[in-house]
């Protein structure tokens, strides 16, 4: 099953495909193929073929332009050139994405736990509050962090009042602002799969651990957390992947030294530097695929694809 099958639909409920598909009988014949064809063709033409084109474009001679066209010269040097120029940006993007993912997990787990096990009759209301940010524009919400983190905002003033925090603290246009924005924007993608896992948790297992003299911490580590693992894996992937490629937060909340790889890919494409931009894009995709593969293997869940 896909990682996203853990995400409840907009109205809340999730069905468990594994148990349900056992009951239905599968029909043989041509109909299945006919139903699959239109969507599959669309995905092949506008997802897979473009990916292949992206790879081949990354090997074009870099002297061409959108207007004059490009020639295929198997110019592998595009990759080494791109890496030497944008390597640090790559590292920075992955560090920001990693920080945002960890922050999402630390904030999202208690929230998902509270909704699944502590909220009682407020559960649906809290779930609506989790998806409420999606009801309005991503860009407008990110812009509002510009106001919230601005130099004279109540957030900054409140933090400055805390002892040990310097009086000239700035948040806007710092890495902290970019990571705050990323964390904020992708937090629901962490909370929803975690909630879907924790909702299925049998509380009696935790009680049994307590009865057997496990401390609350041990019970959490040995019972709750392993049972929530599919949600943790799905949630971290769903926050890490979009964060690594994002450039909206760094553009609106950061400064030129907080640029992420998405900024460069986008700017290079807009400036019609096709080969370098394609090479960067291919490397981003490859890096993510490798990281995800290693992560999924090490976390030992077979729930993904």
């Amino acid at each position: 099953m896909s990682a996203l099958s853990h995400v409840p639909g907009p109205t809340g409920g999730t069905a468990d495909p594994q148990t349900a598909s056992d009951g239905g009988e599968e029909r043989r014949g041509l109909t299945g193929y006919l139903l699959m064809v239109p969507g599959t063709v669309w995905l092949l033409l506008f997802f897979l073929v473009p990916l292949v084109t992206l790879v081949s474009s990354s090997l074009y001679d870099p002297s061409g332009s959108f207007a004059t066209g490009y020639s295929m010269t198997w110019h592998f040097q595009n990759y080494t050139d791109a890496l030497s120029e944008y390597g640090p940006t790559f590292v920075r993007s992955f560090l920001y994405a990693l920080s945002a993912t960890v922050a999402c997990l630390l904030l999202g787990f208690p929230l998902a736990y509270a909704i699944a096990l502590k909220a009682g009759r407020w559960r649906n209301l809290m779930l609506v509050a989790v998806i409420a940010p999606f009801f309005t524009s991503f860009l407008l919400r990110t812009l509002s962090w510009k106001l919230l983190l601005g130099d004279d905002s109540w957030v900054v003033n409140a933090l400055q009042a805390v002892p040990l925090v310097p009086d000239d603290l700035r948040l806007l246009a710092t890495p902290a602002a970019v990571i705050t924005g990323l964390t904020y924007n992708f937090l629901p993608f962490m909370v929803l799969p975690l909630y879907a896992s924790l909702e299925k948790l049998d509380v009696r297992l935790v009680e049994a651990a307590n009865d057997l003299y496990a401390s609350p911490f041990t019970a959490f580590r040995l019972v709750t957390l392993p049972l929530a693992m599919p949600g943790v894996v799905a949630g971290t992937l769903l926050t890490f992947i979009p964060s690594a490629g994002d450039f909206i937060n760094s553009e609106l909340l950061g400064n030129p030294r907080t640029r992420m790889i998405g900024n460069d890919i986008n700017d290079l494409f807009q400036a019609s530097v096709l080969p370098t931009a394609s090479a960067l894009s291919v490397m981003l995709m490859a890096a993510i695929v490798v990281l995800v593969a290693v992560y999924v293997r090490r976390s030992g869940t077979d729930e993904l694809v």
Partner: protein
Amino acid sequence: MSAVRGWLGRHAVLIFGLIVLAYLCTPIVVVVLMSFNDPASRLGYDFDGFTLDNWTSICDPYQMCSSVGKSIQIGLLATALATVLGALMSFAMVRHHFRGRSASNVLIFLPMASPEVVLGSSLLALFVNAGYAGQLGFTTIFIAHVMFCLSFVVITVKARLAGLDPRLEQAAADLYATEWQTFWRVTFPLVLPGIVSAALLSFSLSFDDFIITNLTSGQTVTFPMYVWGAAQRGVPMQVNVIGTIMFVLALSLVVGGSLLRRVREAPARG
């Protein structure tokens, strides 16, 4: 004192959760608040004073309302096609046998697992190579939106379809309904809520998309593209009016939908 501490201890997770929810919802409050803002300068993004002017002059900023119109048009068209194609695929995947099922699963899953900037840039590479670099616009945005909405439609409808009790369809067949009658009178009405939520999801994904649209749009300006452009040169407060209207509409749809479901399902539970 110790009673207070005990209460806090028992509810610590819930309290922390509510603080995180506040973090999630504060920006929405800011968007609503800013729709009533009377800005002192075009370049700042601060609340300077209360006014209703933004609400009475929504369409004053140049190109803003036309960009909203464009987003609605693209959203409706892309949603219509993605919902149809995706629903067909989910029926095939849950109810029919065909070869290449796991390859199809990967093909549907991958677009959701790819960063948007990669999806957008590979489409742009395709369009440039096909000689359409000069003709980017409505059509290319539409193509891109159908592509990324499709996967979300498939997983949403599939979940609903897989959750159906197969005995309902067997009962219809036992009562001499033809396959066609069973589909339209039993299966389809039961799956419809899943299709509706898939359509709502894909409209909101399409309406709100910036990264992919930005790479495939050429000169066409959608609402997110308009906000992005405005962010560079000073944001007119009317964008927050649009944001507030979106929020109220979406919230009433979701709340209304779940109330409707509750009313409908109440008698069934007896």
